């Protein structure tokens, strides 16, 4: 069954019957209870991905690697991060594979891409809350491409640790390219700090953002944050 499905995968394209690949889906599910089945499936998927496939078939493989991929899948997926047609589905898998090597592959790809692909990789690092990416993302807040700068600021907000807040605060002091995203990132950091009981750090962020120089929407958000700091304290 699985052999037949992998044969079908070689010719799989838009309009092909997904039922022909059902055995692959079944094996991905069965892999939870049977590590050998999972490992065999992963190896076959990697091999297929390294071969000749249509874009649709490559996408399908990446979707399955998002379910069963391990560190073994990372090199094949990393190679796709820099390709316009494949970068998203490569992230589809790498964002969800819970090994450090997947995050490392995403970080390393940053220096090889630009524009939208870079934005995508930044967003995946944010979604993984990859603290090892904070320094790099901090540098990207000042990127001349506003989309990259915005994405980096939002990702730092999602990561939400003290170093993220530091990078965002530093960017706020200079001439921020995208103040809305930096402010949103800072508010997000402050909320994470409040949850982890770092009231003083959260309060410092809120006080900065409560200043008259900021728009009313931001001042109100900061004031609500300050009240939360106070109520937590009480």
């Amino acid at each position, binding site marked *: 069954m699985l052999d037949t499905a992998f044969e079908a995968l070689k010719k799989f394209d838009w309009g092909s019957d997904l039922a022909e690949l059902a055995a692959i889906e079944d094996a991905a599910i069965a892999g939870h209870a049977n590590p050998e089945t999972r490992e065999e499936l992963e190896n076959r998927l990697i091999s297929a991905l390294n071969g000749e496939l249509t874009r649709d078939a490559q996408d399908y493989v990446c979707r399955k690697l998002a379910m069963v991929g391990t560190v073994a899948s990372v090199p094949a997926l990393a190679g796709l991060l820099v390709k316009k047609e494949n970068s998203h589905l490569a*992230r*589809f898998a790498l964002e969800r594979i819970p090994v450090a090597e997947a995050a490392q592959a995403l970080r390393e790809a940053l220096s090889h891409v630009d524009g939208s*692909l870079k934005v*995508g990789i930044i967003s995946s690092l944010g979604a993984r809350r990859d603290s090892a990416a904070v320094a790099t993302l901090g540098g990207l807040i000042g990127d001349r491409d506003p989309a990259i700068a915005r994405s980096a600021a939002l990702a730092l907000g999602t990561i939400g640790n003290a170093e993220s807040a530091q990078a965002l605060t530093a960017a706020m002091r200079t001439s921020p390219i995208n103040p809305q995203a930096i402010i949103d990132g800072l508010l997000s950091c402050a909320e994470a700090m409040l949850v982890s009981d770092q009231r003083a750090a959260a309060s410092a962020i809120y006080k900065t953002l409560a200043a008259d120089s900021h728009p009313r929407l931001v001042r109100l958000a900061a004031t609500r944050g300050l009240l939360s700091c106070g109520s937590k304290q009480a």
Partner: protein
Amino acid sequence: MSLTTNSTRRDFLKTAGAAFGVPYIITSAALGNSERPPASDRIVVGGIGIGNMGRGDQGAFLGRKDVQYVALSDVREEVREKSKAVVDKHYNNGDCQTYNDFRELLARTDLDAVHVATPDHWHSIMVIEACRNGKDVYCQKPETLTLREGPLMIAAARRYGRVVSGGSQRVLGDYRKYVDPAWAGEFGKIKSINVNVGPLPQLCNLPVEEMSEKIDWDLWLGPAPWAPYNSKRCSGSFSINGSSWRSFSDYSGGGMTDWGAHHFGGATFICDVRDLQPEEITYFDEAEGKYLAYRYPNGLVIYHNRPKTENMYIEGTPGEKLAPKAVPTYKGEGGIYGDFIECVKTREKPFRDIESAVNTAVLAHLGNIAYQLKRSLKWDAAKQEFVGDAEANRFVDRARREPWQI
């Protein structure tokens, strides 16, 4: 995108005369009359996604005297034109502005609120972006596509002090024959309730089709994986069996989320667990069929598709009667739309506040994952993750196509 303040139409009108420095005529429509508030007191609304559901939402807001509908966004040119014509005819002017890209609409500083009725894969991005831009939001159901989106939407709403309402009018409207006795305590302690809804979403692999409409295809796909145009892929029909985006997992949770928003929403309302999420999902695969049992921290069980059990079947405690509670309802007048507009004015939480809407959607998402993985799951609502199941945790979210991010 520019940084916008929370300036309202009222603020704008207060300063506009001085800013422009030229005389202008105040029309009778702007001043209002005994039946319509003056323009400065109306809630200024825009709409994003004016398809089947969006048209209905737009009509509901247009019909309100306390609303001024001024802008709309849709990726289909024909929809934009027709929808603008409807709005302009209603006001007898040509003022309604149209946008292909919703970000331009959200950047307007004169809008108080927006309604969102795009396919589900767009909801979280648009709701969060609207909050960042100081807009209140009425978002059609199902509000989320993944589990991770819900907490981020709630956080954005709370962060910016926004009123964000989910969209199921059926939660309060369809189940009163169960809600009223349940809240009156007549069932005693409710042990379980059954919800019948489906089907599950499916992967879409429709063939390439020549584009038969003027649509910004890249923007329609947005954060979803790239795929070639096919009219069924982007059809807004209410089909959940392969003939519309509602059927496909890249854009929707299938019938589980589409009708689940109503049925699960009704069940959680009946049982008064709208503020909770389940902690355990048990998967059954028996001769009579596959079904689920969601167990809540308070002991309640919500069954899904329990064999030979009717929708909303309630198992109470015979002979027991609990103290009655007042049934929550809409504020203002005009159903769920009136509730939203009233809350925009008063800053109260709407009946379908985003948090309870998200809690409903969580049931559907957890169910989809349990059925796909064919196994029971434990869910930690506080951490928003599956307990001891790294593979299931891979389904909590999915990467968005560049350049879209939440």
